[in-house]
């Protein structure tokens, strides 16, 4: 039985959608009720910048993955050569 690699991407994107939902409401609360002072602005911009950076690095790291390839579930799934 084979496992397509896009399954991992799909799981990640679902988790990311849930994540963005909560992140949006936090940012919304800050902008709507936060009396948008320096500390509020600083933390909001910092949070958005960090999230964008993490997502950019993630995209760069998995960009060349052949998503349509499949790997057998038994054997070769992990793809690690362990300690050398």
């Amino acid at each position: 039985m084979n496992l397509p690699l896009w399954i991992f991407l799909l799981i990640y994107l679902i988790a990311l959608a849930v994540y963005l939902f909560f992140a949006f409401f936090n940012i919304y609360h800050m902008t709507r009720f936060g009396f948008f002072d320096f500390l509020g602005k600083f933390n909001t911009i910092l949070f958005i910048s960090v999230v964008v950076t993490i997502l950019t690095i993630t995209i760069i790291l998995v960009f060349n993955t052949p998503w349509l390839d499949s790997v057998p579930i038994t054997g070769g799934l992990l793809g690690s050569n362990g300690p050398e």
Partner: protein
Amino acid sequence: MKRSPHKIKTMFPSQREGERVIMMLRRHWVIIWRYVSMLILFNIIPVAVFGFLFLYLGWTIVPGTPLYLMFVFGTSLYYLVIWLHYFHEFVDYHLDIWIVTDQRIINIEQIGLFNRVISELNILKVQDVTSELKGKVQTMLNYGSVYIQTAGTTQRFQFEQVKDPEEVARIIIRAHDNAIAKTTPEEIQRVQQEKDMLNKTPIGDNTLKEYAQDAKGKKF
């Protein structure tokens, strides 16, 4: 007179015309610093663990394999979650505000993500103000709670984990005295009647009228 450590930087949205903000309080900075230090620690842990595994033990992961994808996506989600957790705690900290004006005390509390409670109290209805420093940390860093007793036996406004609670209590009492001194006797009588209705037991010998007369003779 000692100057309050609580500086007023911005006004609040529902401010009335002519209403003067005396102080605007948030929890003590040590509360958010707990989360900042946790964030720093949780950012360092994977770097240390993966650094040990890949640089010291010489482990490698072949790109494009399921393990590689699990590693990248797992690490990505881990960092996203710890930053969201920090930001959520910051929002909770930042949106919990207590405002004391010359007319009222406002308590704005963010409970979780979808629950926001705003309550206010007429400054004339303040009966008793108690400050509390609990434990070694609060005593050392001088932060704690301020309880404001209003009409009724169980109703209490609570300022939690605020800086210099004794000074805050003093400022509230002074604001209350000033408000009484500026209020007409009819208004005082009305508030007194409201208080008497809410309280099952009378306030005592010092009625607000007498208190107002005392307060008018004092300089604030």
